[in-house]
């Protein structure tokens, strides 16, 4: 009950936000909100792996960054009128979101499939370290691409268009991000209540039992990891549009860690919690950074206390409900 009220309240706030901000003459804040929603999408996607699957991925920054670079690079080549690939067949740049966003999701999804296929043969700390190692490989690979800015990052000259309609101003992109978050939450909630989710959760709670039941534990986890990577890539494509800039920083391990913090802070195994976690963490960073440059000194201990004393995270504080136990 409280859960429904909470979801409804957050939804109403997010839908009202563009109108309220416009009325208050603070429309520029909408861009900040769009960034929060992009991270919310990535955090919810990570929750599939972390909260439901029990896999602590320390490499989701790689998927976020890959998606952002795919969208950014396609826009870059479109502006320069140069091909992304010249041979053996020609792939040109594009501004069309209906092409670029699925491409971003597909690239990140394929990367997740490859990384997952190897990493999921390990467990526990080994899994954490191997996902981190793969993400670092991707990070340094991108740094070594001077045509896309290397360490300086890539300026994105324009925004994607959606079915030919340009996404000018902050509102259209905000709506795109909000719809994507809502869609993903609906799809993921359904899938986690279905046979796929039951098997994934069961394998997390007791792997030995799951194997004795004949559940395809490895393939279930790989499917969840791949889906999560693809959606995280989509979030990256939104970020590239929002910032008009793609930084290799998106691929860094700090970013992977931040996504983990968002999920745990919000409440893992709830899908909605990580959305709150992302919004809360980014807002806190923003506010505290305005107060003092030593904002980490405040935020760090605050997060520590919250995680120590509210094991279900923010979602439990709001709804009284713990995540998937």
């Amino acid at each position: 009950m409280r859960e429904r009220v909470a979801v409804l309240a957050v939804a109403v706030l997010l839908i009202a936000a563009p109108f309220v901000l416009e009325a208050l003459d603070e429309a520029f804040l909408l861009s900040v909100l769009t960034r929060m929603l992009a991270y919310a999408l990535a955090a919810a996607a990570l929750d599939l792996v972390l909260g439901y699957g029990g896999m602590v991925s320390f490499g989701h920054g790689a998927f976020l960054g890959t998606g952002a670079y795919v969208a950014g690079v396609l826009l870059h080549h479109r502006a320069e009128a140069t091909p992304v690939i010249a041979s053996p067949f020609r792939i040109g740049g594009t501004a069309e979101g209906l092409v670029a966003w699925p491409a971003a999701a597909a690239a990140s999804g394929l990367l997740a499939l490859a990384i997952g296929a190897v990493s999921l043969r390990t467990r526990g700390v080994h899994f954490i370290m191997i996902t981190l190692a793969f993400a670092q490989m991707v990070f340094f690979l991108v740094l070594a691409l001077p045509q896309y800015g290397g360490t300086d990052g890539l300026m994105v000259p324009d925004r994607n268009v959606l079915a030919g309609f340009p996404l000018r101003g902050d509102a259209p992109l905000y709506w795109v991000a909000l719809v994507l978050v809502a869609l993903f939450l609906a799809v993921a909630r359904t899938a986690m209540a279905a046979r796929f989710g039951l098997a994934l959760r069961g394998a997390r709670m007791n792997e030995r039992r799951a194997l004795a039941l004949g559940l395809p534990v490895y393939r279930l986890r790989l499917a969840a990891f791949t889906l999560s990577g693809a959606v995280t890539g989509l979030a990256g494509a939104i970020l590239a549009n929002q910032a008009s800039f793609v930084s290799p920083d998106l691929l860094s391990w700090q970013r992977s860690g931040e996504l983990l913090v968002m999920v745990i802070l919000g409440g893992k195994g709830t899908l909605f919690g990580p959305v709150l976690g992302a919004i809360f963490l980014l807002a806190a960073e923003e506010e505290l950074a305005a107060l003092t440059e030593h904002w980490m000194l405040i935020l760090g201990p605050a997060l520590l206390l919250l995680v120590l004393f509210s094991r279900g995270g923010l979602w439990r504080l709001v709804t009284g409900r713990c995540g998937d136990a």
Partner: protein
Amino acid sequence: MPEPVLEARGLTRRFGALAAAEDISLALRPGECHAVIGPNGAGKSTLVAMLAGEQRPDSGTVLLGGEDVTRLGAAARARLGIARSFQITQLCRGLSVRENVLLAAQGASGRSFGLLRPAGRDPARGGVADAALTAAGLAARAALPAALLSHGEQRQLELAIALAQAPRALLLDEPAAGLGPAETEALAARLGALKGQVAMLLVEHDMDTVFALADRITVLAEGRVIASATPEAIRADRRVREAYLGDVVDG
């Protein structure tokens, strides 16, 4: 004699210098209850783990319906029809009782990638699960989280899970472990009702249960088979009495 459902041929497993299982052979025939007894450390649990595919034997083969499954892992063997219960209860404690059983039906049917319909409203697997819960006497507890069951009920759930797998061979590793006399009796009655329907390998310390249910008894000691015969013959066997049964039979 009918073809065995499950057969072990010369299974050997060593941990360093210790032989946990040494050249164990036994055959489980359709519908029979084949008990495996022996003192602690005789290799009973190792045998079950090798039959279920959780441990690989150093040598020897496991045949299911005449086919060599020695190289298959636990999940693959489960899908082919080997179900097991655990000596120490293994449940998904955060899931409800019914969800635990649904998961078993799901694993056996090989359909775990359904994305749309809520798992609890899946008619095919739901029917299997509800029948298994009833057979195990847990229908009234279906909605409860598995973690909240009493120890005895958790053992019943282990049985319900194994039943929902609709196995060809059911391996029961000390199903009465930690149960009181009344609970043990109820369990024996439930297992007795299954006799003839599914081939059961029963590892058990409670001799009343073993002699009430078993069609055949294999006795292990220090990793080896020291006798394998009908319950009457085992009762009379001198070596078995010396190694293990003495106090039970004389008392």
